[in-house]
């Protein structure tokens, strides 16, 4: 029996399962998957009613059959899924059975605490059970989070050979609940090896149409749509859907005429809706549409298309030649790293390059953590940069969105290791025009390498719009005559191969004075040849100005809007009071919480004082004043924190100065403290307040973040020999985890003291769970630290 899915004609899916079960008396709040076990005959009957009206595919009653939703129900994933597939299989005959995978119902990192790996494992369990029970395809549906969809797709592809279809659900604002728009969804999902993609649930069929149009515009794959029977309306005790079968059918016809190939129904649809749908398609043939083929990278919520206008890839997250970043990576100072990411975005970066290659760190682990941290805060697409294939793979696996891999080159070995990763995870890739023999001198030779890479990539199923060629910049001081070859290569590669290009321009000036002049001139030359993107420092005003000017002169910035916005107000704003900061000024700056002025104040003082002197004579006294004013109620919390942030900025300048002067003066540190919001807890504002105050008072804080696994806390304490741990928990439900963390610390780190805080705690409760100290607020945490360290 041939039960292979085919897309050469329309394919009709069934309608709702839940709606039908409710019609048969299922109560609100009941677990519909339980019916697979308790009432298999009813499920079979519903399947048969859809088959009877002509559905080509029926969907198993396993939407919520995952380990999270089945927790505490006494049911196992394996039995519910196996049973679900068996029932459908029995009813389907030679028609197709789709294993249904709905969302896990948990919010994923970084906003929730479901990790990518945990989501993957949950889906894997369903996929394994469903494929061995005889499903014909896998339907990943109603996804609201593209990151979760990605985990489900990977789980499906890695644990079965079945075709995979993925649909997401959108809201009235045209985005999914986690903020993904249709184009971004297509750009991410279609490259992960699925067989069809589309939209379900969401709104009514009418409201869905503009979203479907957007999907059809970009999708290289068959598109599926399964709308609700109208917008759900709650009427008293019931939810009703207002679109009847006839109307549903006519919308189905409209969707089919637009180019949709697979249709079915979601909430509120019945066999009558599917019958009407089937009838409405009579006489129609699928419409073949040619999608836009774009080169585009995505984060979960933002897609950047390489469409001519030069795209800026921020280069600052790369430790090469950057002492402060090296130090931050080594000490896992992610605040600094995030600040670098945000600064680049604020200065106009379209994407960020991420490179954490340092010999003395675990590059893979740090890459993964950096991606997670950056993606929690900045919504730009990423370019993952490493020479180690295992770092690239670990990175692209957990990276949300569609990243760029940096890079491959013409070496056979590199191509064979990296291209399969690029294909599997649906990434874009940077192709460097060099090979075993190095960088060729002439443009023509570089063109040949680019061509070779493109052909090789095609063998792996990677199309050329997913490749960005880097023609490589040589330095004018060493290879002056070859600089022109790069410019020429950009033109050639674009003309002959029709691919997008990229350059890391600032290399050109290495070893010469006034590098800025050379860089920006070279940039302008290459942009005029059609360079699509440049890796550069977005904080370099000269470079960004060149790009902005180019955009005007090349008609990308129409009406010069961006240019005018950037420059018409220029000189007026640049008049931040630049008083000659004397000592009293820095104290006042801190007491008044004037964050933006802290750096200038410290720099002025550094001319005549050492960093330590500034700390002792200015920062600490000012902090004391602020602390006293807070305790007397003269200022309130936001004002206290404003001053604390000002001190933090001041410290940052002092630290940079110390690194620069290689004094490596660690005496600034009074002691090491680990801070964490305990496992399960996601509230971290309180912890962040404690952190900044402790840092202000000179402690080195290892901030492990929120929802921190017990082992990670223990490990850090052991590795860094930390004498004091601060734990925070805000919920009664997570205090249990706090207690477990304390027990683990007692066992593995007997000398370590523990202070705790959080809304549900008090002195007595803290003692009960075994903490050494209870801190009512952040000031108390500082006092506790002083007690522990100054003893």
């Amino acid at each position, binding site marked *: 029996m041939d039960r292979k899915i085919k897309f050469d004609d329309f394919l009709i899916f069934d309608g709702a399962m839940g709606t039908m079960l409710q019609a048969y008396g299922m109560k609100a709040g009941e677990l519909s998957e339980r019916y697979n076990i308790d009432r298999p005959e009813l499920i079979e009957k519903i399947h048969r009613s859809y088959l009877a009206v002509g559905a080509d595919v029926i969907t198993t009653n396993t939407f919520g059959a995952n380990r999270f939703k089945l927790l505490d129900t006494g049911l196992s994933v394996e039995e519910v899924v196996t049973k679900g597939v068996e029932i459908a299989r029995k009813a389907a005959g030679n028609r197709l059975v789709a294993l249904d995978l709905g*969302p896990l*119902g948990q919010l994923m990192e970084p906003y929730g605490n479901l990790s990518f790996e945990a989501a993957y494992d949950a889906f894997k369990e369903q996929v394994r059970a469903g494929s061995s029970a005889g499903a014909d395809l896998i339907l990943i549906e109603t996804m609201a989070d593209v990151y979760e969809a990605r985990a489900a797709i990977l789980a499906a592809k890695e644990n079965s050979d079945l075709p995979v279809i993925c649909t997401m659900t959108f809201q009235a604002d045209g985005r999914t609940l986690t903020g993904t728009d249709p184009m971004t969804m297509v750009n991410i999902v279609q490259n992960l090896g699925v067989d069809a993609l589309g939209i379900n649930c969401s709104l009514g069929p009418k409201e869905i149409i503009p979203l479907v149009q957007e999907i059809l515009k970009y999708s290289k794959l068959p598109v599926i749509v399964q709308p609700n029977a109208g917008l759900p309306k709650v009427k008293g*005790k019931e939810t009703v859907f207002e679109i009847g079968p006839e109307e549903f059918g006519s919308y189905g016809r409209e969707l089919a005429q637009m180019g949709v190939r697979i249709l079915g129904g979601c909430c509120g649809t019945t066999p009558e809706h599917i019958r009407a749908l089937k009838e409405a398609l009579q006489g129609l043939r699928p419409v073949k549409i040619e999608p836009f083929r774009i080169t585009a990278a995505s984060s979960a919520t933002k897609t950047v298309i390489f469409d001519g206008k030069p795209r800026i890839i921020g280069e600052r997250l790369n430790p090469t030649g950057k002492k402060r970043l090296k130090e931050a990576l080594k000490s896992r100072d992610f605040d600094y790293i995030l600040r670098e990411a945000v600064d680049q975005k604020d200065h106009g970066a379209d994407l960020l390059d991420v490179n954490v290659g340092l010999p003395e760190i675990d590059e893979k682990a740090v890459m993964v953590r950096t991606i997670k941290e950056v993606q*929690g805060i900045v919504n730009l697409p990423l370019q993952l940069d490493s020479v180690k294939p295992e770092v690239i793979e670990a990175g692209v696996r957990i990276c949300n969105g569609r990243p760029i891999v940096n890079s491959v080159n013409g070496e056979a070995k590199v191509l064979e290791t990296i291209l399969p990763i690029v294909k599997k995870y649906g990434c874009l890739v940077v192709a460097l025009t060099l090979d075993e023999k190095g960088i060729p001198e002439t443009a023509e030779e570089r063109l040949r390498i680019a061509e070779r890479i493109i052909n090789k990539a095609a063998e792996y199923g990677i199309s050329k719009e997913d490749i960005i060629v880097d023609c490589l910049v040589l330095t004018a001081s060493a290879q002056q005559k070859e600089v022109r070859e790069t410019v020429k290569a950009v033109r050639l590669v674009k003309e002959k191969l029709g691919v997008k290009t990229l350059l890391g321009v600032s290399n050109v000036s290495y070893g010469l004075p006034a590098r800025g002049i050379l860089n920006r001139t070279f940039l302008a030359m290459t942009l005029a040849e059609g360079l699509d993107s440049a890796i550069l420092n977005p904080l370099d005003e000269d470079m960004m100005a060149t790009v902005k000017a180019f955009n005007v002169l090349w008609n990308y910035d129409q009406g010069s809007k961006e240019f005018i916005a950037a420059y018409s107000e220029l000189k007026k704003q640049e008049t931040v009071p630049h008083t000659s900061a004397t000592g009293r000024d820095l104290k006042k700056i801190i007491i008044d919480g004037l964050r933006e002025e802290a750096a200038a104040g410290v720099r002025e003082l550094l001319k005549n004082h050492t960093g330590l002197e500034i700390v002792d004579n200015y920062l600490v006294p000012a902090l004391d004043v602020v602390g006293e004013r807070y305790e007397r109620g003269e200022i309130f919390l936001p*004002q206290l*924190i404003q001053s604390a942030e000002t001190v933090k900025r001041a410290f940052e300048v002092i630290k940079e100065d110390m690194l620069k002067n290689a004094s490596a003066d660690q005496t600034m540190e009074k002691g090491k403290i680990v801070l964490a919001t305990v496992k*399960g807890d996601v509230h971290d504002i309180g912890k962040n307040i404690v952190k900044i105050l402790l840092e202000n008072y000179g402690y080195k804080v290892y901030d492990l973040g929120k929802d921190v696994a017990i082992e990670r806390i223990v490990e850090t304490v052991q590795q860094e020999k930390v004498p004091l741990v601060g734990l925070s928990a*805000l919920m009664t439900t997570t205090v249990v985890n706090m207690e477990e963390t304390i027990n683990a610390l007692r066992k593995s780190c007997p000398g370590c003291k523990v202070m705790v805080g959080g809304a549900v705690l*008090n002195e007595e409760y803290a003692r009960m769970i075994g903490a050494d100290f209870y801190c009512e607020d952040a000031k108390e945490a500082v006092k506790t630290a002083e007690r522990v360290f100054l003893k």
Partner: protein
Amino acid sequence: MNIEKNEVLRYLGYKDQVLDEGMERLIQECLAEIQTILKKNYVYQIFDIERQEDSIRFKGTDLAFQSRDLSRHLGKSDKCALMAATLGLEVDKRLAYYSRLNLTKGIVLDACATTAIEALCDEVEEEVRQEAEKAGYCLTSRYSPGYGDLSIYYQKDIITVLQAYSRLGLSLTEDYIMLPRKSVTAFIGWQREEVQADKCGSVDKCSGCDKKNCLYRKWGKRNG
């Protein structure tokens, strides 16, 4: 949505300190920003209820809530609205952002968001009230899991029965924390009899909550 600056200040523990120009501007900025990022996502459903001694059963469902305090709260009600509301994930994203890069703003925006979710609940309650009045009912005040002896574990049942995940994106972690963070579930009783005017001022709002050392409560206490 009307978000009261005084409420925001209360959550921030404000007590007539001098607000310099910068702080005043920051608060205004946050009040404006929260309006642009919040979603008014909510759902409610009305159920007939049955009271047993220490529990409430929702007719036509599997739901039953074991709680003396809830039972007392709904003592005169024969119907109950079950509601869930959330400001959505964008608020969490923004709070995460500021809490790492501009903590002062993070704290102020957090207070604005707390005020906003309360305001949203007020709006939902008003909608429920209109529906109730048409049917000749008065409303009790809102009552949420975690108040009194009403276990926080009931969040799961409420979210399931209201399909709050698929409708609002409101999810529950394994530790029963609602996400997005600024979310509320509540019971609102429908009773025939006029409800005693709420005597509680803003500070007393906290008295039913088990976050005994909550920043906001603490300040309320100090101020009060």
